């Protein structure tokens, strides 16, 4: 495997590889559309999950802070977009203005969560973030009285789609003889955003900030001794992770056209955590792989298991949704036991696990 990807001394291979990937990604939606537009939509949601998983990876993978309420930032981004671009308040700001606002509001919430929890140890932090996620959801559900802000459990409908001049992303269009449906246009947009965020992540990981996060994850006290401002760095991790979630939330709002607190339940947070853990915390490509796997495999199962059950038993015994969740559950347990660093482990994480196994042999308690 490694030899196959070893392109050192063969710069041409890099370009050929990149070109191949680019062609595949460009043609993909049309290939999927030929099976059914649903699959383009599924791909779009998968990309949204990639965005979320990359955002959470900053907090969990880079800085080592387990956040179980991450979906709250997605919700904040989604609701910010929905409130500023829908008939609910009769505001219709353009998306290029709303998305950054959503990211900023989400980042603010990230700091709001991060500030009081700075001193907490990993597992406590996880529970507090989980509580935070629930609080946000309870507020979204109930802030319809006395002043109707979120419209409660009914959610907000008729949210504006993305529009650039005359180009409306929710409508189909024929350009140069090629038919572009709404989901296909969103696909390209999402792809662009995803590529931008991947580049940002790769650059971030090797930057001064990224290395500071890594140091904090490895040993916070040592990091502080080395002159890293751990407080600011942790808050920055929360804020950045949250802002990515906010952007993803805004896009979700626009694509879906309707949001309600139902979309931001605890299970969603856990799903994103599963993606990061399965792929390999801290490894950007691993996280992307994890997000894609956990987005597509359940969908493929949905289309195969149900007909299979009907053929075999004459009726549906187990709902696809249940199978999906059981897969998540077993994936989490099995991965942690047999491959704790994830499918594509980050180099640091591998070293860390090897080291901790050795040191734990010497001393069971830390």
């Amino acid at each position, binding site marked *: 495997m490694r030899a196959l990807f070893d392109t050192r001394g063969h710069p041409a291979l890099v370009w050929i590889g990149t070109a191949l990937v680019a062609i595949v990604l460009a043609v993909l939606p049309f290939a999927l559309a030929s099976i059914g537009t649903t699959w383009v939509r599924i791909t779009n949601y998968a990309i949204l999950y990639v965005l979320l998983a990359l955002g959470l990876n900053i907090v969990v993978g880079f800085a080592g802070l387990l956040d179980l309420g991450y979906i709250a930032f997605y919700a904040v981004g989604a609701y910010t977009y929905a409130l500023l671009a829908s008939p609910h308040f009769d505001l219709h700001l353009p998306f290029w203005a709303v998305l950054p606002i959503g990211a900023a509001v989400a980042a603010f919430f990230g700091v709001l969560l991060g500030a009081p929890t700075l001193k907490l140890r990993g597992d406590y932090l996880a529970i507090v973030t989980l509580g935070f996620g629930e609080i946000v959801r309870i507020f979204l559900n109930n802030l319809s009285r006395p002043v109707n802000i979120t419209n409660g459990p009914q959610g907000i409908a008729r949210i504006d789609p993305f529009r650039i001049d005359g180009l409306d992303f929710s409508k189909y269009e024929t350009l140069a003889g090629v038919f572009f449906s709404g989901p296909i246009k969103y696909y390209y947009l999402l792809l662009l955003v995803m590529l931008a965020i991947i580049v940002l992540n790769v650059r971030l990981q090797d930057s001064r900030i990224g290395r500071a996060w890594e140091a904090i994850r490895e040993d916070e006290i040592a990091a502080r001794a080395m002159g890293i401002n751990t407080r600011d760095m942790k808050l920055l991790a929360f804020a950045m992770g949250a802002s990515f979630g906010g952007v993803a939330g805004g896009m979700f709002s626009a694509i879906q056209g309707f949001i309600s607190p139902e979309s931001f339940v605890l299970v969603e947070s856990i799903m994103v955590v599963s993606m990061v853990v399965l792929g390999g915390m801290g490894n950007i490509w691993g996280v992307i792989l994890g997000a894609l796997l956990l987005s597509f495999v359940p969908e493929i199962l949905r289309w195969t298991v149900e007909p299979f059950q009907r053929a075999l038993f004459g009726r549906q015994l187990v709902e696809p949704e249940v199978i999906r969740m059981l897969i*998540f559950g077993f994936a989490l347990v099995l991965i942690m036991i047999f491959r704790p660093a994830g499918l594509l482990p980050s180099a640091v994480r591998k070293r860390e696990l090897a080291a901790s196994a050795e040191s734990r042999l010497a001393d069971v308690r830390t």
Partner: protein
Amino acid sequence: MDVFLQQVVNGVTLGAVYAVVALGYTMVYGIIQLINFAHGEVVMIGAMVAFSVISALAPSGLPPLAVVLLGTGFAIPVCMLVGYSMERLAYRPLRRAPRLAPLITAIGISIILQHLALMIWSRNILAFPQILGTTTYFVGGAAITNVQIAIIAICVALMGGLAALVYRTRLGTAMRATAQNPQVAGLMGIDINRVIAATFVIGAALAAVAGVLYGTYYGIAQYTMGSVLGLKAFSAAVLGGIGNIPGAMLGGVLLGVVEALGAGYIGDVSDLCRYGWIAALMDVRCADGGHFILFGSEYQDVFAFLVLILVLVLRPSGLLGERVGERA
């Protein structure tokens, strides 16, 4: 009727159940410093099993109390089995892993248990058959039912029994020794694996009873009931000082009371019309005894989380905890 006293009575009842669940968290944490995230699901399984047994036996003509006891009698061994398998399959292999690893498997176990329950008992809200006749007594302006009295009494008995087990028996001594230092305890001839498994099993048995009590108190059970209940009980354990058994009891009762009073009074307190100047400032119409309530009792669940966050920020060791929860 006295609202304050009534809410205290309701809060103590609920808090007693929280306390019993919190004991499960705190015992496991005390021994292996693990937050058994899936503990709430064990409570749910207990309630569900009891529901099935009680519904099946309700029309049989057996005395109602015997039916409920039989339900509990079935729920306890099932939950003990769940607790044991959980420890054996998901936590024991990871005892030497970094500490986030068992937390993540715990989330996995919790999802698995929830959805297995969904497959068995459907996603509907199940109504417990109300076979126990309720009698209401009035004490100093507050109403208290015989079910509430029974719940409080059972919880107190369970806590007493557990305290006796931990502080008076050989197993309890072994548990406390393991909590202090597993390695040395092992050298003293204690089978640590057995002690840890026993801790999980005892916690699960307590959870089973708590599940039955919760189910009969509210009259309903659903496959999702475990997660919020578990979170609240965990908050209670942290409030009292995690790893500390009397702390879990205190924390549970306090949290129950805080929640009940919070839900009872938040509507009044956040009614802007009570504060004439704020209402005037915000141009709120309050004529003819009108109300402008910012937050109603639907925010009840927020209190437990707020308490959790406040305790962790202000006093991470909890009310009775001696260990300061800094870092590993």
